[in-house]
């Protein structure tokens, strides 16, 4: 008996060590990637790099048009996907009953979340660029990114809405509130931090995507800022792809610098979302 207990103990210890090792091997490269890009990219960052146009076939100068372009695309994506996504989440959490059609909506959302990003690119090309004649433009790219982002926003928002206690709704209705008043005055404000977190995480993904904008709005090189939604635009992820694969004799520093700016753009969204979430949890009254 004694021996078998010792044996079990040993197996457990071995098992736990193995799992710890697996977890650390998963996490360690993430820190390496971030650390390495910061280390190699930091020397490239200067005011000129952030505020100037590219020169010498992108081998010198700054990356302003790519930064501004990614900003435009992110905002454009938000304009379409945020209202639609939140409204869809409200429908699923507050109005929809468990019917066949509701299940169909849920399956559709799961599938939208799984469609490869390059397929979204094809769809955007077929529908927005060609069929609706938007051309390769910020508008077409933003719409494409919006539909890709939609499932993330819907899922996160629905979860946040469902977390609001049912009793608040019942009380509001019993005091003479309509369903919409109840949603607008209680449910939405209480779910807002959760919704915001989901929205930012969705937009973070959109900001870092390349494949959906390849054929819908990304410009290889554009030595000026876009001045209408119908213009094509440079974008940070696509620019990084271009200068690391398409341009010979590209200085490493510019490549790492661009990667770092993209990383900062995306990570700061991630951090903002995390901060909103943890602050809301601390302040929550239920």
């Amino acid at each position, binding site marked *: 008996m004694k021996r078998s207990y010792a044996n079990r103990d040993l197996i457990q210890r071995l098992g736990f060590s193995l799992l710890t090792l697996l977890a650390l091997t998963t996490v360690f490269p993430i820190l390496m990637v971030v650390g390495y890009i910061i280390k190699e990219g930091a020397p490239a960052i200067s005011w000129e790099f952030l505020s100037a146009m590219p020169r010498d076939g992108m081998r010198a100068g700054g990356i302003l048009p790519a930064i501004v372009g990614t900003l435009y695309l992110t905002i454009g994506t938000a304009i379409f996907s945020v209202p639609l996504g939140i409204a869809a989440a409200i429908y699923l959490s507050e109005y929809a009953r468990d019917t066949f059609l509701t299940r169909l909506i849920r399956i559709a959302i799961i599938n939208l979340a799984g469609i490869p990003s390059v397929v979204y690119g094809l769809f955007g090309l077929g529908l927005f660029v060609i069929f609706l004649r938007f051309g390769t433009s910020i508008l077409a790219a933003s719409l494409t990114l919006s539909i890709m982002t939609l499932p993330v926003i819907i899922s996160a928002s629905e979860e946040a809405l469902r977390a609001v206690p049912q009793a*608040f709704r019942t009380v509001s209705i*019993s*005091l003479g509130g*309509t369903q919409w008043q109840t949603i607008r005055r209680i449910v939405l404000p209480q779910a807002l931090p959760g919704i915001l977190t989901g929205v930012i995480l969705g937009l973070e993904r959109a900001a870092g995507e390349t494949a959906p904008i390849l054929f819908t709005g990304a410009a290889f090189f554009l030595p000026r800022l876009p001045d209408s939604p119908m213009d094509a635009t440079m974008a940070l992820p696509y620019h990084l792809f271009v200068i690391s694969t398409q341009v010979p004799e590209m200085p490493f520093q510019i490549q790492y610098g661009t990667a770092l700016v993209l990383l900062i753009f995306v990570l700061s969204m991630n951090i903002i979302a995390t901060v909103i979430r943890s602050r809301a949890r601390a302040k929550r009254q239920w």
Partner: protein
Amino acid sequence: MVDKIVIENLSLTYAEGNESLRHINLKIAANAITVLFGPAGGGKSSLLRCINRLNDLTDIRLLQGKILIDGQNVLDPKTDVIALRRKVGMVFARPVVLPFSIRGNLTYGLELAGEKRKSRLDEAVERSLKLAALWEEVKDRLDDPAVALSGGQQQRLCLARVLANQPEIILLDEPTSGLDPISTGKVEAALQELKHQYTIVLVPHSVQQAARTADYAAFFLQGELVEFGPGRDLFTNPKDKRTEDYVEGRFG
């Protein structure tokens, strides 16, 4: 005695769950406390939720009969349920304060109806808090979050919140079930004051509370109304064997 609410042959079955009501006939007097009591699952809460149509939020398989308030059948689909719920306020078993300030909780119902005038809102806050015997305890911190109040204070705030709407009928579903005896006493005392102006329907959380508070009492058992009468008679001299057994604690 005026009958404020007349329930005629009311039957109810939910799509899920066991609680139901069968052929209920009951007259509820104005300016009195009518107590609906009996073992859990007897249909008391369901009846309350029919009176203010809160059951609209639940899946119902069958609903028959009439509930007349001032002669109007509130189960009629054409009823303005928003107006009905303003006229018939409800306090729930667990104190549910909304995630606002104390003041925000009290003005919520009026704001829903579009009241924006600050003087009216302030007046309603003070009046309703006084009626619920909470004014002295909170008058200096009306803008504090309502969750900071104790459980007993929260439940009186919920009562005040209903009163701010100036209802005619107040439904209370085991309002003191989570409270200590002192808080319970305060709520009961407030109800005794309120009954002079309002019609009160109370589901008590114990037979003792039923006996203490009832002007009229109705004993419910498994969806049926077994016995109804003035509180005095029903608790001291029940006519039905089942009522007697329950009141004397032989089951429940």
